[in-house]
């Protein structure tokens, strides 16, 4: 039987999706199932890892049925996943020993403060490229080991396993308690704070710093390589790729060359820049992370800039203020005026992420006069996403020493033409949208297909990438400079609002 398709599993924060792609990278079938978000205490966010596994058991076969095929026609499956979310489970029974702790969970805040004050705290950033912060996995694992009696001893004996979502799913797919393969990939491992960014292996110094036993950790493997064969759900199908979701989007956008970048616009935005085979340390508030690793080739690194609030500001305009009925109406309203009328909105709803990392900042609207209408506010809402992108790109250009020439975009906000044009205008580079919007899933499928020879090489994948739209910069340089200056002054006004715990979070 010919193997005509590749499957991707996108295990995201709110749902799990299965998509089948054909050889030209076109979508053949899509199935999706949401899982519950648990908020047991303020600041805590949990998932039920068993629910997520059951969802996959259901939607995997559904995706095959929708396409009218059997698992024999699937060349390989690749997994993209919500990053940093932590699962601990019993090796013998396959049952999680605690709820999965989601990347948004802030229960480790105090622990992270304590660890940051430790004289050896500098080793974290030096060895793994990331700052000590609550959303990475290591503090969470440490917290869980401290919190549950006897858990540390069981972890030391290798009876309790740690994994992010891709590890949990691969272990279950390959047999679970009955011979399940316990692996992770370099991109997911790079988000734990435990992997040495150059050796691409667990770092004994970091394991010691966090007090995490080596025996509970999965084996770190390349992002594109066959880890094993599924014995459940998709029997006989090779499991051949795993990547964190943002890295998968970088791969799906075929940003394979140094200097190529993509930005995914959702609730927040994540900009990743391929920096080639050398990790670039950031001095401008960005994260150094692994982009992908194909088989035994050298790993490709990336700089990451995360923006907390982009689409969420539009949602607030819709749900919090009720000024618009649907998110796309923000563009209609913004087009009722020609400019922002001197008004700027800095959406520091829970502080600012890259490149500022100011947890004490809070949102501001500045430049209000009686001239300002809701149309001007709508402009300011969209422009906030544009300027936040500009700040991250400036930081990237400075850190990487290469200037961005094009920005590839994906995500829901790319349907907003006014916003896309504004981003091109303020970055002064073309902004391009690819024809397949599902770049996360596509990236996982590409990496899996590459590992099994379904696609021959990266160039073949690049030929599948087609431009669906392009926005060309058209803003007067003087105006761009003036507006950027206004934006920066607005950002300064958001700083130092929360007292007295004012302090810096993150890098």
């Amino acid at each position: 039987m010919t193997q005509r398709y590749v499957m991707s599993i996108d295990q995201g924060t709110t749902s799990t999706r299965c998509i089948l792609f054909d050889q030209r990278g076109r979508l053949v079938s899509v199935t999706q199932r949401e899982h519950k978000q648990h908020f047991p205490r303020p600041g805590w966010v949990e998932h039920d890892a068993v629910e997520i596994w059951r969802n996959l058991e259901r939607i995997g076969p559904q995706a095959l049925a929708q396409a009218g095929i059997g698992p024999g026609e699937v060349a390989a499956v690749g997994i993209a996943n919500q990053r940093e979310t932590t699962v601990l489970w019993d090796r013998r029974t396959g049952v999680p020993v605690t709820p999965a702790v989601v990347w948004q969970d802030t229960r480790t805040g105090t622990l992270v403060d304590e660890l940051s004050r430790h004289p050896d705290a500098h080793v974290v950033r030096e060895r793994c490229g990331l700052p000590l912060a609550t959303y990475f996995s290591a503090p969470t694992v440490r917290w869980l080991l401290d919190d549950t009696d006897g858990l540390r001893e069981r972890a030391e004996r290798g009876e309790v396993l740690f994994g992010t979502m891709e590890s949990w799913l691969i272990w279950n797919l390959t047999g679970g308690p009955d011979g399940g393969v316990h692996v992770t990939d370099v991109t997911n491992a790079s988000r734990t704070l435990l992997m040495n960014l150059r050796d691409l292996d667990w770092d004994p110094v970091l394991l010691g710093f966090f007090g995490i036993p080596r025996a509970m950790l999965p084996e770190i493997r390349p992002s594109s390589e066959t880890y094993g064969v599924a014995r459940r759900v998709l029997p006989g199908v090779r499991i051949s790729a795993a990547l964190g979701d943002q890295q998968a989007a970088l791969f799906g956008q075929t940003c394979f060359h140094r200097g190529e970048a993509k930005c995914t616009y959702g609730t927040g935005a994540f900009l990743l820049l391929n920096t080639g085979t050398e990790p670039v340390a950031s001095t401008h508030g960005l994260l150094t992370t692994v982009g992908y690793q194909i088989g035994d080739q050298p790993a490709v690194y990336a700089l990451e800039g995360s923006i907390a609030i982009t689409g969420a500001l539009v949602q607030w305009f819709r749900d919090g203020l009720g000024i618009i009925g649907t998110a796309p109406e923000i563009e209609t309203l913004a087009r009722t005026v020609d400019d922002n009328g001197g008004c700027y909105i800095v959406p520091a709803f829970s502080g600012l992420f890259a490149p500022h990392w100011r947890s004490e900042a809070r949102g501001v609207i500045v430049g209000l006069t009686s001239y300002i209408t809701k149309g001007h506010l709508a402009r300011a809402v969209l422009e906030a996403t544009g300027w936040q992108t500009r700040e991250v790109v400036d930081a990237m250009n400075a850190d990487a020493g290469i200037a961005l020439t094009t920005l590839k975009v994906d995500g829901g906000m790319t349907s907003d033409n006014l916003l896309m044009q504004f981003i091109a205008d303020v970055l002064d580079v073309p902004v391009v949208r690819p024809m397949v919007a599902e770049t996360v899933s596509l990236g996982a499928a590409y990496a899996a297909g590459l590992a099994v020879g379904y696609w021959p090489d990266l160039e073949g994948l690049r030929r599948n990438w087609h431009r669906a739209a392009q926005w060309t910069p058209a803003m007067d340089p003087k105006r761009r400079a003036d507006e950027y200056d206004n934006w920066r002054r607005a950002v300064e006004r958001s700083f130092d609002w929360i007292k007295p715990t004012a302090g810096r979070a993150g890098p």
Partner: protein
Amino acid sequence: MPGPIQSIERAAAILRLLAQGSGRLGLTEIANSLGLARGTAHGILRTLQLVGFVEQDEATGKYQLGAALLHLGTSYLDVNELRSRAINWADALAARSGEAVRIGTHLQGRVLVVHHVFRPDDSLQTLDVGMLLPLHATAIGKVLLAFDANAAAALHDAVRDGELEQFTRRTARTQREMSRMLATVREHGWASDADEAGMGEAGVAAPIRGYGGLVVGAMGVSGATERICDSGGRPRPELVGYVRDAARAVSRDLGASRW
């Protein structure tokens, strides 16, 4: 002549009731006021809710007039909303057909391009969003003329008894010629143009419908005549199929049930 339709009379009564007083009423209050069974009132309210004429408060379950009713005079579907709802289907159409895709709505006697997907060959192309096209010489425009009475009236007012604007020797010249063409479009459910807006340019388009079948726009492919049409000058049947499938898919997403 058939008598009045009872459910429409009752729907009108519910709207009048909601327009009076506090404007927020529960199901029982509405049913009691009009002497209707709760099930009947609920069915009508749900339909009114579906088309946006009535909204239900999540917390209290009470009903009130919907925003769509208050803005009945303005556009029924925001064009940016239309783009956002159609974008995945438009991408899929471009990928399947290998041609550029455009979505248009009627604006003051012209076609306003509200969405554009490039032809997937990575050649140099520029976004046509915001551009105005002639109604009578493009496939998208003909669909709008055939299925949107306001577009047809606007063109009629603009032209009166004069000649339609000519772009090539194949552009429709008279209202009579146009009427014949539009009858065919209504019969087939899709439209095409070949060398009518410009020599060497052709297109195929189909209507996008919302609730009740109301046409909110048209979606189609456009490109070089030799690629869009066969040797007999007719649009290639597989392209017509792709375009109709895509337009139907968007229509279903927008709530059109029969198409």
